[in-house]
């Protein structure tokens, strides 16, 4: 069923809770890294493992929590995450998105997302999709049956193997960014002249913003 407009085909794992916060997605002890990679093994660390996690551990030696859904054999190869309300609330840490991507997730589907997390997703190519609870329930059934889910980003439709499940909304430019991987900064810098002009006026209008301590005596 894969056609040219398919963004992703995969299997989903449900994490059926509201308010999954960024501290759960990647606990704070792993934020000390100065890199963007390597966070996947500690995604949902406190839920995935029986013991307390530390940076630099050999995770293969840790005892896993067999009850946690990501560890259940059935869901091991999932690359679509389904959750409920207010996913990604809490801190602004982009590490939360980096760890979902590093684990292998390509898409997160939820009833709603926290603002900062939602922006962070697009800035890293992780696709967040908002659906209503009824549509999510349908996807949960598919996930449970280990049926494949197809995401057609171009046409903004989610399919099961044999039918259309839901249509989703996405900002057209953000869609373009995910599909084409545009350089956001480069794009903003095409407005350099306008920024300079604005800044010049701002200095005239509110000079104290640009005063440093020394000048101020």
């Amino acid at each position: 069923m894969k056609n040219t407009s398919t963004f992703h085909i995969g299997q989903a794992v449900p994490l059926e809770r509201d308010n999954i916060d960024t501290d759960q997605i990647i606990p704070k002890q792993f934020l000390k890294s100065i890199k963007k990679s390597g966070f996947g093994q500690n995604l949902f660390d406190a839920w995935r493992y029986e013991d307390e996690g530390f940076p630099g551990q050999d995770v293969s030696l840790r005892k896993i929590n067999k009850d946690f859904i990501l560890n259940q054999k059935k869901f091991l190869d999932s690359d679509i995450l389904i959750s409920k309300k207010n996913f990604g609330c809490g801190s602004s840490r982009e590490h939360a998105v980096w760890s979902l991507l590093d684990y292998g997730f390509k898409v997160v589907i939820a009833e709603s997302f926290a603002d900062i997390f939602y922006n962070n997703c697009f800035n890293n190519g992780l696709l967040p999709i908002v659906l209503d609870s009824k549509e999510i329930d349908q996807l949960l059934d598919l996930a449970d049956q280990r049926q494949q889910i197809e995401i057609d980003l171009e046409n903004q439709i989610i399919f099961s193997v044999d039918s259309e499940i839901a249509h989703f909304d996405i900002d057209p430019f953000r869609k373009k960014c995910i599909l084409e991987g545009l350089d956001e900064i480069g794009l903003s810098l095409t407005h350099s002249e306008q920024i300079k002009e604005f800044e010049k006026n701002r200095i005239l209008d509110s000079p104290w913003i640009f005063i440093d301590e020394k000048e101020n005596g």
Partner: protein
Amino acid sequence: MSYTLYDKLWNQHEVTQRADNTYLLYIDRHLIHEVTSPQAFEGLKLAGRKPWRISANIATPDHNVPTTDRSKGLEGIYDEVAKLQVVTLDDNCKEHDILQFDIHDRRQGIVHVVGPEQGLTLPGMTIVCGDSHTSTHGALATLSMGIGTSEVEHVLATQCLKTSKLKNMRVTISGELQHGVTPKDVTLAVIGQIGTAGGTGYAIEYSGSVIENMTIEGRMTVCNMAIEAGARAGLVAYDKTTEDYIKNRPFAPSGNKWLEAIDQWKDLASDEGSYFDKEIIIDGSSIAPQVTWGTSPEMVIDIDGLIPEPTSDSIKHALDYMNLESGKRIKDIRLDQIFIGSCTNSRIEDLREAAKILEGKKISSTIKRAIVVPGSGLVSKQAIEEGLDEIFIQSGFEWRAPGCSMCLAMNPDQLGDGEHCASTSNRNFEGRQGYGGRTHLVSPATAAASAIEGSFVDVREFIS
């Protein structure tokens, strides 16, 4: 045409609309700490870009710094990975000539305490930081928002945030607060009412007589937790209280510029008749001291409340994690640790509020550890000058050096597995204050009174 405060701040900073219908919003001030900036500087370097305007940026390390012995400086950070992060901030600031209050500087502290304290946060500004609690600065009539690391890199490179316009919400807290009820209780009560996603997509302007009569530090506590209501930005109108707070701060304007500035700032309030997409009105006199029982800030009840019934999976999960029984009194929870600090409640007024209750008293022998962590080196200095440190120490608290500390426990200050903590911080998420730790968010007054009692007490009765 009448505008809200948010609309005015937006209009004064909108540079242009990009082809994708998002806007470039000019950023006056960018605050930087060690955790969310290294990857942004790295990205800048890889793309061969430079910071747009150096003097817009101010940095200080806060999340990873130890709060015990500060005399060793960087060598006092025993976790090598954490140390590298602080060193990386030093290196990036040196390379780009960015002003940093480093680990040795007496002005070092939590970035959201340091900004206003130094007068680096000025009314009318747009302020961003790679930290969700940037909403704090809205207390000074600024538009301040937390951003992710990609956005940190974008702001460094372009001096603009690429963003969409938020909707306007006004939360009016009318009447007068009861004696013993604090700004922390106000902000928790708001979250309890609208929920942790209630403000998603909005900027929340706090208003009403309770806010008008509140100090700037109190307003910062309220705006700090706007993000816990889902709102990226919290705001309070400029008034005489704002003016008095800013005057004579190191980076505030002086002389003629000061006069010019206060003349401009006085317009930083929502116009009469301006439109809000959502209005919430709360009777301030009905707010009791608040305590969170669960693992989300919206799981909050009055001090004389009962632990709720497990009416949803989320509540059931939270009750299990917190090891609480429905129907029991919140006052019956035995406490193991007390934490007074964080960008929510570590300013001088917070420390005074707690010290007033602790003076001449001892904390309960059942409390394993009670720590107080001032928000900055200057808050600490002021507290010492007022003798507050002695009051804390005499009562059984440990007096610490400034930083984020046990709010998110990236440094060695942590809860043990299963321990209950009365904490003046902002998030009661699972494991945030330590693996298996159980956090209850409260005001400094409630934390102090509960430390004496060994369990939660109604501070209104305690002080009468």
